[in-house]
C-alpha cells in the first residue's frame, strides 16, 4: 500500500471484519450457555464439551477445505456460468476471486503483507460455520455421541452450508441468476439449512428417554436453568449484531463495479454487492427482534424459554430481506415467523414424535424457511444483483427477486442441502452404532463418572482436613 487513502480503506475494512468476528464469538458463548441451561444436571459437562468442540473441528476443516468450496462452487458446478470466467466449471482459474487462492497450501492462507482481507473474511465466514453447527448441537443434546456430533458438525459447518453459501450468497451464485434468490442476512443460507439438517438427524436419532409416554403423548423436559438460557439468548442476540455487520461490505465504490462510466458511488453493500446501509439494517434488526419477542410472549403465553427464543426467530425470519425492508415490515414479518415456528414445533412434535430439545428446528429452520418465502412476496421485482437484470431460468443474467424463486430456494436450503444430508449421514453413523449413546448411559447421565470422581476427590480432601 503506497497511498494513504487506499491504505486507510483497506485497514478500515480489515479492522471492521475483525470486530465482527470478535462480536460473533458471543454467539457461540451464548449457544453454550443456552444448551447447558436446557440440559439436565447429569449431562451438563458433556453438553458443554460437545458444543465447545465445534470450535476446533469446524475451524481446521474450514481451513483445509471449507473456504475453498465457497469460492469454487458458485456455478454449481454445471448450472450457470460465472460472470468472471463465463464458464460453468468450478472457479479455480487465475481470476481475482478464484478458489485457487484459498487452497490450504496457498500463500494467502497465512500472514501475507500483500493481503489484509482474506484472513478476516475467512474468519467471518468461519464464525457463520460455527453457528450452523451449533444450531444442530442444541437439538440433539443428552443422547448423541461426541464422535457422531463431530462428524455432523464438520458436515454442516464446513461442507453443506458452504455449498449453499456459494450457490445463494456469493455474488456470482447460480441461485441469484436462475431463481432470483435473495437472502441478505441468511434466513435460509444458515438458519433454514441448519434447522433442516437438525431435523434430518433427529428423525434417525430419536427422542430422549421419557420424552414421550407409552401412548405417544409428549412430556415437557423443559430448561433446567432458565436464567442461563436467558443470558445465553441475550448473548446470541449480541453476537447477531456482529453477524449482520459481517454480512455487509463496509465501503465500496459501486460506480466502476457496475461498469457505470464516470459514476462514483461509495456505499456499504450487502453480501451481493447491492447497496444498503449499516444504519438501515440496524432499524430492521431491532424491529424484527421486537416483533419476534412481542409475538412470542403472546403465543407462548409468557413462557420465558419460548419468548426469548422468539426474539431470535423474529430476526431470523426477517433476515432474508432486512437489507431493504421498512422497519415495520421487519417487525410484522418477525412476528409472523414466530407464530409459524411455534405452531410448527408442537405440531411436528406430536405428529412425528420429534424431540427437538431446544426448538432449534423451529427457531432456525421453520422461521428461516418462512422468511425466505415472505421475502419473495415483499421484495418481488427488486434486482437480485447489481451486475445485470434478466429473466428467471436465463442463467447468464440475474433474475429479479420473486416468490417462486424464493420458495424453490427455501426447498434447496431446508430440504436438499439440510434435511436430506442430515438424515443420510445420521443413518450411516447409526448403521455403525456410532450415533447414539447406550440406553444405560443416557439414564445414568453422561457426566456420571466425572461427578463420581469429584465426589471421591471431595471426600479425600475432607478427610485430610479433619
Amino acid at each position, binding site marked *: 500500500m503506497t497511498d494513504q487513502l487506499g491504505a486507510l480503506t483497506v485497514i478500515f475494512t480489515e479492522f471492521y471484519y475483525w470486530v465482527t468476528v470478535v462480536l460473533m464469538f458471543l454467539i457461540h458463548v451464548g449457544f453454550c450457555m443456552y444448551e447447558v441451561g436446557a440440559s439436565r*444436571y447429569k449431562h451438563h459437562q458433556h453438553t458443554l464439551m460437545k458444543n465447545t468442540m465445534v470450535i476446533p473441528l469446524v475451524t481446521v476443516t474450514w481451513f483445509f477445505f471449507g473456504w475453498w468450496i465457497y469460492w469454487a462452487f458458485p456455478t454449481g458446478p454445471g448450472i450457470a456460468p460465472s460472470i468472471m470466467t463465463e464458464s460453468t466449471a468450478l472457479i479455480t482459474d487465475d481470476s481475482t476471486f478464484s478458489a485457487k487462492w484459498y487452497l*490450504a497450501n*496457498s500463500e494467502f492462507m497465512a500472514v501475507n503483507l500483500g*493481503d489484509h482481507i482474506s484472513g478476516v473474511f475467512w474468519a467471518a465466514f468461519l464464525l457463520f460455520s460455527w453457528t450452523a453447527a451449533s444450531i444442530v448441537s442444541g437439538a440433539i443434546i443428552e443422547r448423541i455421541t461426541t*464422535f457422531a456430533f463431530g462428524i455432523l458438525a464438520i458436515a454442516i459447518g464446513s461442507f453443506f452450508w458452504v455449498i449453499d453459501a456459494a450457490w445463494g450468497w456469493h455474488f456470482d451464485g447460480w441461485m441469484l441468476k436462475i431463481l432470483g434468490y435473495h437472502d441478505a442476512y441468511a434466513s435460509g443460507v444458515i438458519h433454514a439449512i441448519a434447522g433442516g439438517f437438525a431435523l434430518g438427524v433427529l428423525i434417525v436419532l430419536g427422542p430422549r428417554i421419557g420424552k414421550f409416554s407409552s401412548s405417544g403423548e409428549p412430556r415437557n423436559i423443559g430448561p433446567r436453568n432458565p436464567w442461563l438460557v436467558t443470558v445465553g439468548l441475550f448473548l446470541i442476540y449480541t453476537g447477531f449484531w456482529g453477524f449482520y455487520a459481517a454480512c455487509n461490505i463496509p465501503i465500496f465504490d459501486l460506480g466502476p463495479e457496475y461498469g457505470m462510466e464516470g459514476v462514483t458511488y461509495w456505499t456499504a453493500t450487502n453480501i451481493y454487492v447491492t447497496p444498503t446501509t449499516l444504519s438501515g439494517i440496524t432499524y430492521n434488526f431491532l424491529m424484527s427482534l421486537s416483533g419476534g419477542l412481542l409475538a412470542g410472549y403472546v403465543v407462548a403465553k409468557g413462557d420465558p424459554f419460548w419468548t426469548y427464543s422468539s426474539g431470535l426467530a423474529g430476526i431470523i425470519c426477517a433476515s432474508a430481506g432486512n437489507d431493504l425492508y421498512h422497519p415495520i415490515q421487519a417487525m410484522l414479518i418477525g412476528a409472523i415467523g414466530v407464530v409459524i415456528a411455534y405452531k410448527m414445533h408442537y405440531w411436528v412434535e406430536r405428529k412425528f414424535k420429534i424431540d427437538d430439545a431446544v426448538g432449534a428446528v423451529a427457531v432456525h429452520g421453520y422461521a428461516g424457511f418462512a422468511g425466505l418465502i415472505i421475502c419473495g412476496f415483499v421484495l418481488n421485482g427488486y434486482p437480485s444483483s447489481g451486475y445485470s437484470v434478466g429473466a428467471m431460468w436465463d442463467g447468464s443474467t440475474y433474475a429479479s427477486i420473486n416468490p417462486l424463486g424464493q420458495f424453490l430456494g427455501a426447498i434447496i436450503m431446508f430440504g436438499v442441502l439440510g434435511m436430506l444430508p442430515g438424515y443420510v449421514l445420521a443413518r450411516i453413523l447409526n448403521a455403525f452404532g456410532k450415533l447414539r449413546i447406550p440406553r*444405560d*448411559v443416557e439414564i*445414568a447421565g453422561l457426566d*456420571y463418572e466425572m461427578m463420581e470422581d469429584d*465426589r471421591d476427590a471431595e471426600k479425600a480432601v475432607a478427610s485430610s482436613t479433619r
Partner: protein
Amino acid sequence: MATVTNWIDHLSAKEVVGAVYPGAGSSETLLVILGVVFWIGWHVITNKSESEKLARLARKRHGANDHKSNITDW
C-alpha cells in the same frame, strides 16, 4: 527457514514479497499434510476413548437418580 532476515532490504525491494512466514514457498504442502494427520488422528483417538468410556459406564447400570449421590458440596 527464515523468509525475512532484513526488513529494510525486504520492504525496499522492487516487488515486496507478501508471504513472510517461516518456510514460505516451500513448506505449505507438508504443513497441510501434517495438519490433516493431526485432525484425523484426533477423531481416531477420541472415538476409541469415548467408546471405551461409554461401554464401561453402560455395564454399571446406574439408575436415573444415582448421580444425585455424586453431587458435591463444592
